[in-house]
């Protein structure tokens, strides 16, 4: 049995109001950020011997930055390491067992709904196992049913994607530094991917050569890479290099610099394709007002900084 990070709906509302005031996010996203943190909290409380889990992806990138520069991220990406390294289907089943254990820990005690943990309804292909932690929203509206998890419209959820078969896992347990953590009494520690791992992942994502990403070419990944570029001095470039090399070898990509070239090309494309309409409808329509780009020039400057960063990296790889 466990309790959420807040005592009741009223306290949740109060924290949401403070996030809205302090960070310019909407109530919807502020509430999602809180449930995301509560889900990580739940995961710290439920141990599973055979699996080592660590936070990665966009949410983890935010952890390394000042809270007032963090972007909204609604999903939890988890890297999975299985001690006995058995095949994919065995690890998948272990994830399902873990999710069931998480769900069992959400049993309501005092009438305050804490949600459920749902497994997908269909067989999962590829190396990602999606799980959903539902919650009863005050602000976070959903309008459509989610067929993958059998969640009806109106019920909100936090996606937890478990990534199997990770290469060069690199993480350390740290006290989480996410926007809602400053409003919560409890100190929350979780294994988080290192900057080097995150950088390698973002380069791979933008290279668009591998499942489950393919050429997603998402603006949010460029934003994240831009953030990491701003912390270039704190990154051990050689370590990132080794991670990329290991991944490239496994995927039979030779030389490994091809991955960085492909990533650079994606960013270049996203820079060149950006016009005022795309900026409005794919970026500014989704960002908090203070973080919106005033013009395409600002977006292009951001992409150029990322390209320069990748160029520096390419020089090292050669």
């Amino acid at each position, binding site marked *: 049995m466990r309790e959420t990070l807040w005592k009741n709906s009223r306290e949740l509302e109060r924290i949401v109001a403070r996030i*809205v005031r302090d960070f*310019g*996010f*909407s*109530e*919807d*996203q502020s509430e999602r950020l809180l449930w995301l943190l509560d889900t990580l909290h739940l995961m710290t409380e439920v141990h599973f011997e055979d699996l080592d889990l660590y936070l990665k992806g*966009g949410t983890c990138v935010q952890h390394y930055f000042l809270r007032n520069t963090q*972007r*909204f*991220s*609604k999903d939890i990406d988890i890297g999975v390491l299985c001690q006995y390294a058995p095949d994919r289907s065995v690890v998948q089943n272990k994830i399902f067992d873990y999710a069931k254990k998480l769900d069992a820990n959400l049993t309501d005690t005092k009438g305050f709904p804490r949600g459920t943990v749902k497994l997908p309804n269909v067989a999962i292909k590829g190396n990602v196992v999606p799980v959903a932690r539902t919650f009863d929203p005050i*602000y976070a*509206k*959903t*309008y*459509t049913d*989610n*067929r*993958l998890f059998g969640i009806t*419209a*109106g019920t909100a959820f936090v996606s937890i994607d478990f990534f199997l078969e990770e290469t060069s896992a690199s993480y350390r347990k740290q006290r989480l530094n996410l926007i809602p953590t400053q409003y919560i009494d409890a100190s929350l520690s979780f294994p988080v991917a290192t900057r080097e791992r995150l950088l390698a992942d973002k380069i791979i994502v933008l290279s668009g050569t591998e499942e489950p990403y*393919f050429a*997603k*070419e*998402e603006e*949010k990944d460029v934003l994240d890479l831009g953030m990491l570029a701003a912390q270039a001095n704190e990154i051990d470039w050689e370590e990132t290099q080794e991670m990329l090399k290991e991944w490239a070898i496994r995927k039979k990509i030779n030389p490994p610099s091809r991955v960085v070239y492909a990533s650079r090309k994606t960013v270049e494309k996203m820079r060149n*394709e950006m*016009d*005022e*309409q*795309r*900026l*409005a*409808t*794919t970026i*500014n*329509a*989704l*960002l*908090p*007002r*203070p973080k*919106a*780009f*005033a*013009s395409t020039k600002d977006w292009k400057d951001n992409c150029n900084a990322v390209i320069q960063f990748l160029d520096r990296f390419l020089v090292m790889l050669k």
Partner: protein
Amino acid sequence: MSLSPQFPKADDRVVEVLSDGAWHSVRDVARVGKMSPRSASMHLQSLLTRGKVLWKGIGAREHRYRLIDDSLRIKVKERKPHLEDRIVDRLRQSIGDRFYFDGVFAKRVLDLLDWYASINLYEIHVSRKLVEKASEALNALNDEVIVAPQSLNWKLANRAMQIAALVKIIPQYNPHEMKKHGNMNVIKVERLLANLKEQSERDYKRVLEMAVERGLISSERTEFARNSLEELS
């Protein structure tokens, strides 16, 4: 955020014409302000995106503006929860159910955004005849939103989104293109995809993938969608 601290001279002339607080057509403003209609329209749209004037449409082509604030200061509008509910309530009270959302908010309702933060843009289809009523109804929310014509250029739209949520009224309405999700009237996913395909192959591909994944495209169409995806890749 770079927001101009003072009105340019031409804007001054436009503000002067509007200073009686009444609604004025672009043509009126051009005539009295001694400028071309094109130039008047540009200045009016610029004032609109700084929250200085209100806009309302009469049919698809006529645009009228009214001054609400002649100060130089640009005030960021307050964000309140569930804005979309209030937009829907206002529209239903004034034009019934004859409207639907398109663009980024339609994607949000259809769960076709894989990341989002605030929604700062609402594109709403209404019939030409109802543009006036719809824009008047939504102007009642002007402490939260900027209501603008479809023709507002995207550069100004980006500027508007820095101070408020932007509501664009699109004077094209086809009831066969609408579907309800929850309480929301939204453009059908097939139409949304067709529009996206015209704008960007990349966005189309991304949203199509998600629509197939979410089961939003009917079973007969799923095969068609998958084939389209294969062709694209």
